[in-house]
């Protein structure tokens, strides 16, 4: 454990920064789970709630950012404190983006709730969101515990989300080719999958920031870039 600051109000401010990030992180987790749930059930009311809840996450971002800027001005933080404040700003901005991506999933529910969702596809989507959510939860724990091992595990785990995304992408294309009437639904689902994949990327950013916060260095492993879909073509013989 680090020693406490001589100025106790400084110590309190740093602690409050941490607790706000924990709260914001909790809200974000809930929001993603609800958005996905609304998608599976075609639940418009719940989707609308998600859209409203996202505003709370945005408020948290502003609040944390403002506190961080005030602390920089008043305390002129150094070393670990400087890293904590910089990292807080970065993590909140990643969480805010994750919230937006959740909101985007909820908005799509409003367009596709009447359509019947192919079971097998939704199964793949579900395992992708489970993974994205558990990654998000783990990285928030890693932050709270200042646990670099956990952060590294999350960082490495993103590959798996990418792999699911790649296979979902193929699957969705197949559905669209089978019957052009599926194109509307599948395009929305494709965006939802892409959103989950992006959530994974933001989670990875947070993992990198936890590593930097604790050790003052960047993760220096090469991460295999997992989203191959930019190079994927439709092959009729597939």
């Amino acid at each position: 454990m680090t020693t406490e600051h001589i100025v106790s109000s400084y110590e309190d401010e740093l602690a409050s920064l941490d607790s706000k990030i924990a709260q914001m992180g909790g809200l974000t987790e809930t929001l993603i789970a609800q958005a996905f749930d609304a998608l599976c059930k075609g639940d418009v009311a719940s989707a609308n709630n998600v859209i409203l809840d996202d505003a709370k996450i945005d408020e948290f971002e502003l609040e944390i950012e403002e506190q961080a800027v005030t602390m920089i001005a008043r305390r002129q933080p150094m070393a670990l404190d400087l890293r904590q404040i910089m990292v807080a700003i970065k993590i909140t901005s990643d969480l805010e983006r994750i919230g937006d991506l959740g909101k985007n999933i909820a908005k799509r529910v409003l367009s596709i709730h009447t359509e019947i969702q192919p079971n097998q596809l939704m199964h793949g989507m579900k395992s992708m969101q489970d993974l994205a959510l558990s990654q998000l939860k783990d990285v928030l724990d890693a932050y709270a515990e200042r646990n670099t091992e956990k952060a590294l595990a999350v960082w490495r785990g993103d590959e798996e989300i990418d792999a699911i995304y790649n296979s979902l992408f193929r699957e969705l294309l197949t559905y669209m080719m089978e019957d052009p009437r599926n194109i509307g639904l599948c395009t929305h689902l494709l965006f939802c999958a892409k959103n989950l994949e992006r959530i994974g990327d933001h989670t990875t950013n947070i993992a990198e920031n936890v590593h930097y916060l604790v050790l003052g260095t960047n993760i220096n492993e090469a991460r295999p870039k997992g989203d191959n879909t930019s190079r994927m073509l439709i092959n009729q013989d597939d």
Partner: protein
Amino acid sequence: MVATHVVESKAPMLEQTNDLAEAETTNVEPAEKSTKITSEDVCVYYGEKQALFGIDLEIPENSVTSLIGPSGCGKSTYLRCINRMNDVIDICRVTGTIKIDGKDIYDPSLDVVELRARIGMVFQKPNPFPKSIYDNIAYGPRIHGLTSNKAELDELVENSLIKAGLWNEVKDRLSGPGTGLSGGQQQRLCIARAIATKPEVILMDEPCSALDPIATATIEELIDELRSNYTIVIVTHSMQQAARVSQRTAFFHLGKIIEEGETTQIFTNPQNEKTQDYITGRFG
């Protein structure tokens, strides 16, 4: 319009540039500099009491090295070893070696007066002599016989004042008393006085602690300009000042160097817990 910074080097850091090299800050040194001052196992005793314990430190030339640490940790004591100012304290005893340009400065055959001419010193409180501005600067060159006639001396005085950024403010009152200047001007006068003997090294012991933020910024700007020609060692109690002006930082604690390294690294990612606790305000 936003007024320009007193400290010029701050402006490019804030500007948007695509070229990283352009945005290079004063704290980033392109290449390794050669060592100007080497200390090996330096110990200092005041009578029975030991104040410094085996200091090993290499100070690179034409750069600013800051010494930080809590009160009484030995920063001033170490600084005074470099120009042998400790010699004048009766009870003070120095062991170990300090070399400048590879030459042992405690070598008995060395001329201490000549050594002090090569090493300028600026103190916490500006301490101009109770003489005219002109004589304050001319004093050193006169006793060291650096000039041979009045014209040469005039030129040296003018140049020193220009380098210290004071010329325009005092050129019309050179015969006025040095003590009649403002605190910030007096400190620049002392820097001009230190420069006048054409030193290679300038030692500064908390040179800004009696100055307001603008006068401080002016001195910091000056330090930044001087470092291309001089090796500067500065003791400061302001972490921000150390972070702003120096390229390397040494952290002293209880008479020992706990950590020494690149300033940016010391202030963003110190390796030693004591350093971290000190610079973040966790112990005094």
